[in-house]
């Protein structure tokens, strides 16, 4: 996938809340078809970086360029046509919208203020739901769906937006292991099949290792490491950032990290696991 144009690039981003600098000199590039994982401990600035990219917050310094246009100054409507966001804990739990109605809201940036969705929009919504394997959930109310189903519906809404770039904030939160892999596998396939550029914030480093092309490791708002998982997920990088002992095993060519808290370092990791 080399040689593809940069869909999204961030340059020297900086953001301060009060006296706390939550994002400090963060730069990265995501090309079409690639998945960038943003990882780091709690409070390291992952969500803030995502908010800057989505235009939800204005950077003090630096800029985000999406499809050749600066995000700052782009109208929400124009931005929503090239950038889809699946936020963490959206207020979808209370709304009695059906899944199809929720996905139809993804057509919002394409419709005039008073325009009703037409047959074309209905076809797009249906295709989006089919693509995430949630067509059979179309009539169900979003509030009644399981966490994994809900996440798939939100990804379908992002697809219906027809945007080339996708931002996901911890899409695997509250999901059990199977759905974690299902949702990220779906995200991965969007990249390889449609050329969608994706930025995904993840807590779980092992999921990040499996599904991301590149990783951005943040520590107190700064970039601690940036590169392919194989280069980034090494004890020398992860141990100081997370303040925990790390042992790396490679399973099927994918880096896999085992953690051991500092006070338990008296025993050597079990080498036979590798």
């Amino acid at each position, binding site marked *: 996938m080399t040689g593809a144009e940069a869909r999204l690039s961030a340059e020297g981003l900086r953001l301060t809340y009060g006296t706390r600098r939550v994002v400090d000199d963060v730069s990265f590039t995501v090309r079409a078809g690639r998945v960038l994982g943003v990882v780091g401990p709690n409070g390291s600035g992952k969500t803030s970086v995502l908010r800057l990219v*989505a*235009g*939800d917050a204005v950077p003090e310094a630096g800029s985000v360029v999406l499809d050749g246009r600066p995000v700052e100054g782009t109208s*929400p*409507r*124009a*931005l*929503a*046509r090239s*950038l*889809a*966001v699946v*936020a963490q804990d*959206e*207020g*979808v739990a209370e*709304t*009695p*919208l*059906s899944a*199809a*109605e929720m996905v*139809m*809201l*993804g057509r*919002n*940036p394409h*419709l005039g*203020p*008073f325009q009703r969705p037409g*047959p*074309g929009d*209905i*076809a*797009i*919504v*249906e*295709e*989006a*739901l*089919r*693509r*995430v*394997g949630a*067509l059979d959930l*179309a*009539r169900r109310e979003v*509030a009644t769906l399981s966490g994994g189903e809900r996440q798939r519906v939100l990804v379908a809404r992002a*697809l*219906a*937006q*027809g*945007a*080339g770039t996708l931002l996901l904030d911890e899409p695997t939160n509250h999901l059990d292991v199977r759905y974690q892999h*299902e949702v990220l596998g*779906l995200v991965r*396939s969007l990249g390889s*099949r*449609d050329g*969608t550029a994706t930025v995904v914030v993840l807590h779980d480093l092992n999921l990040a290792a499996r599904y991301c092309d590149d990783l951005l490791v943040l520590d107190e708002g700064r970039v601690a490491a940036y590169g392919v998982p194989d280069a980034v997920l090494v004890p020398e990088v992860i141990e100081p950032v997370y303040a925990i002992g790390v042992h790396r095993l490679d399973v099927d060519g994918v880096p896999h990290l085992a953690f051991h808290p500092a006070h338990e370092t008296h025993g050597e990791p079990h080498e036979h696991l590798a």
Partner: protein
Amino acid sequence: MTTTQGTGPVDVSAVAPPADVLGLDARRRRAFAWLLGLSAVLVASMVVGVAAGSVGVAPSVVAGILADRSGLPVTVTWAPSVDAIVWQVRFPRVLLGVAVGAGLAVCGVALQAMVRNVLADPYLLGINSGASSGAAAAILFGFAAGLGQHALSASAFLGAMAASLLVYGVARSGGRVTAVRLLLAGVVVGYALYAATSFLIFASGSAEGARSVLFWLLGSLGLARWGSPLLVVGAVVALTVLVLVLLARQLDVLMIGDGTARALGSSAEALRTRLLVLVSLCIGVVVAAAGSIGFVGLVVPHLARRAVGARHVHVVPVAALMGAILLIWADVVARTLLAPQEIPIGIITSLVGAPFLLVLVRRLHATAG
């Protein structure tokens, strides 16, 4: 997981199949059925509303008077006094009830989306407190007395507008008009103006005046007459319903969250500001005409959502009809229960609304837990 071979982000060329796979048509038909049914109930309720009262009038006579007044050739079989009661008093009263009920209900729908809280009602913004202060000033101190019979309504409307300007100013002072900030501003302004009303009552020292203010605060359709005030209420409510239906999809998006609204290409703050202007105007006009009638704006949006789902393009008109019907019946009860004495209609709506709220809160707990 079933997938299809897609080439673009989404294959637009696919034609929507006739089968309603997404269930969108089913929802639309359901909403349409509700609208038809409620319209029929509304008409029937209006007839009952005109017929019922301390002097009972047969529905056929009501129809006869309406036909006669519309210029149709009918044989007049009723006394002139009956004509006066039905045409001069009850018709405008029922029509005012329809407008006030619909207005309160759709403003409740808008407010619940604006502050993203299902327990929000139109009075949350303190607009009714402003109207009360205005009404108290008119009743107790003859404020706007130069306007004659419209002094009370005009003064109440001025109070409502002043309150909404205050709310907007307070909500705006910190920058973005967020849901929480708007809620807080409404509560603060509401309490402050409630205190102002109480002070006016206290300072006037008039027991009779205090009673009038109290009666006004509890709401009544008794001031309804043919004429420009009724026309203004009707026009403003109709405009509000229309604009909310046109903005329906924006309300859907707003209901989910500011971040989501933005991600879907709508500016939540700009929308909230526009809605605040519309809702303030509508509530101001309604409260000026009929006082603070509680619970309609809180309860009806829930009934409407239960009936037709979450999409505001369906919820708004259904809520308008439900609100109108509810208010007609509440007024019938208010007029007939202790006839010839009239109970303030706000007492009736609160009596019906409070248990409903209790059920709602229990249900919210059940789903949250």
